[in-house]
């Protein structure tokens, strides 16, 4: 064997060794490209755990590894300004009170709360259609969409979420706000329909701020979120259906300068939404800030 051939064999051998070593050294980063947050086995075990506790997963879950940051937001002054401009252009009369300002035009009252919540009350209520309670959600949604567009309330980032039928005469249609391609689950726009007429629109619009890419953290998997939720709720007496598992942001409404929203897994069980913090795995309660600090 000549020296040249020996060198070639050694080069191939050492190249293979380097690839092998490199793979193990940088495995976590390689792994992220190739693996999933929830393996088929983990999914099977999760479904088994759910079944043991009388829950049934009916929705597909996102199995990819995801990294996100807190979403920093503030109250949207531009949307507040847009709503007020319309009222002022139509010659609104104004009354100021401690907790809110009132703007009146014919048939509408805009209430601007200190927390940033805007309520538009219609008096008389605006007819939307007939016999809405028995119509398909998509038809109701189309009617509401058209109403919002006509009343200059269909803002960029608005996305239909779900609708609730509270009693035989009341329908509440919820919209999300999409920020950075992710939904914000905080009831950003709510349309209240009573007896086929729109009674009010509640608007709580946010603006994103200060995104720092370097702070992104890996979120817990959807399977882990489901396990945590079942642990919190305990076994169900009757079988409950898990019909939606999705990732977004969730927060209360604060009278604050700006605040961070954590990513959450929103899980729909028998018509009720639960929010699992996608960083800590904790069940997010209504009161995010302990009462003593509010």
């Amino acid at each position: 064997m000549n020296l040249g051939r020996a060198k070639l064999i050694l080069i191939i051998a050492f190249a293979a060794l380097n690839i092998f070593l490199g793979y193990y050294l940088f495995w976590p980063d390689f792994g992220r490209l190739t693996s999933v947050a929830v393996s088929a086995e983990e999914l099977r075990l999760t479904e088994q755990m759910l079944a043991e506790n009388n829950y049934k997963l009916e929705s597909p879950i996102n199995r990819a590894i995801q990294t996100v940051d807190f979403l920093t937001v503030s109250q949207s002054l531009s949307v507040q300004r847009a709503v007020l401009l319309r009222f002022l252009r139509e010659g609104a009369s104004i009354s100021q009170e401690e907790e809110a300002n009132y703007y009146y035009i014919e048939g509408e009252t805009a209430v601007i709360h200190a927390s940033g919540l805007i309520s538009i009350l219609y008096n008389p209520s605006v007819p939307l259609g007939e016999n809405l309670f028995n119509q398909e959600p998509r038809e109701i949604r189309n009617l509401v969409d058209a109403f919002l567009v006509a009343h200059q309330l269909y803002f960029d980032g608005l996305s239909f979420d779900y609708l609730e039928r509270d009693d035989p005469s009341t329908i509440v249609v919820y919209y999300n706000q999409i920020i950075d391609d992710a939904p914000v689950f905080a009831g950003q726009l709510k349309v209240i329909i009573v007896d086929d007429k729109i009674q009010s629109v509640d608007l709580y619009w946010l603006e994103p701020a200060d995104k720092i890419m370097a702070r992104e953290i890996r979120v817990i998997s959807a399977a882990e979120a489901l396990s945590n939720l079942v642990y919190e709720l305990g076994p169900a007496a009757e079988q409950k259906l898990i019909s939606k598992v999705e990732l977004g942001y969730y927060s209360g409404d604060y009278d604050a300068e700006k605040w961070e929203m954590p990513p959450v897994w929103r899980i729909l069980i028998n018509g009720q939404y639960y929010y699992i913090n996608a960083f800590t795995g904790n069940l997010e309660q209504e009161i995010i800030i302990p009462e003593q600090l509010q």
Partner: protein
Amino acid sequence: MMKERLKSIILLVLVCLSLFQTYQLWYGQQPAELATAEDIYERVIIEQPRPPEQIIFPETIVIPVENGYYAYREGEQIYTRLWETLLEQLHSSFVSNQAGTVSDFPEGAPRLLSCYLRPLLPVGSESSLLPLLPESELARLDLIGGSETYWVRLFTAEEEVLAEAKLTSTQVAVLQNLISVAKAEERVLHNLLTGDAAASAAGLNVTVNEVIFLPQAQIDLARLPVKPETINREQLLKTFFVDYSLARSIEEKDGAVIYTDGERGLRLTTGGFEFSYPRLEEGEANQTVAEALNSSGALISFHGGWPSGLRLEIIEQARLGRSVTYSTQWRMYYLGYPLYAAKPTRIVFNDRGLIHFNRLIYNLQNLNQDLAENRMTAGWQEALRAALEVIFAEASEQPEDLKLEAFNLGYAIVTGGNELWAEPVWHLQIDGQRILLRADNLVQIQVEDLR
């Protein structure tokens, strides 16, 4: 030839790279199961916790002199020296072999010094200071004696003698020297307030349940600029959240910032912080008082540290439904005078952990004393009458009996212009109602005006 040289270079590079990667794999990475919490989270050590006897200090140390008493309180150098020396002497006297009573105790001998402890100091097996004494609580320490022999006598809150000991000649010499140093300081004489004296000044029946020493003469106290303590926010966050990068922040319009992970919350203001973890509220508090003192001291140390002049005022156990908690309240002192701020520094905890912590500590040290404005305090009799006027103005009918629970000079933290000031005040607590009066003109300072 060129090709062979290139092969050699590539081979050499590959060999070196494989050696480097092998080294990295072997030494550079720590297996997850061997990584401890210390590797992941930076250790946070602010200050070492203290034993109970270094947490509970006397409310007042008095030295009887002709026509009255000299009174010494927290925040004064001589007070600290007196208490530390007494602790040393106590420890050596009662730990060695002289616990119990002594046969040659000179009944009727003069009292040289007294320490009034509020809250009471636990003694007994869990106490490192007085472990040989029966389980009890120390309320008063008297130093008694003549020219060459001293005795120490310890009392419970019920005025029962807990223990007594005769001091050695060396101990006597140390204490004699220190008492003479304390007496040499020019001080205003104090009187022990009696119900009769208070009733005579007030013009109605007044019960005095507490030990209250009041100055016989007017005192010149300065109105002083004050600043809240400086808090290292990042360090503090690390003490409250295991991984504070998972806590979201909420910036309030008043400049305060709340950090919360959805279960616990920390509100940081320019002057202090408030922490709350309501989920732990339902729990037991089975710790002994000594253990609770240790826990509380550790919490003060860990979450912000011990500033000089901080004194424990109250330790109590509270039961509300299924929730049993310990609560401790702390106050800053400056040269013997307590500081009254908007909220006291207060810790609530149980066996499950820390439930609530409010910390608001002001600092009068190292500030520009040129800005100080002197105030001549009104006498205590006028202050008592002014406080009663406040009570009468608010009450629907004039009370016949009053219970005086606290009466002292101090400082109220108030705003003046854009600055914070420590304003000299008379502080009274009558039938549970707290009243603050400007020490010079006796104008009431409302609790809402405190900062």
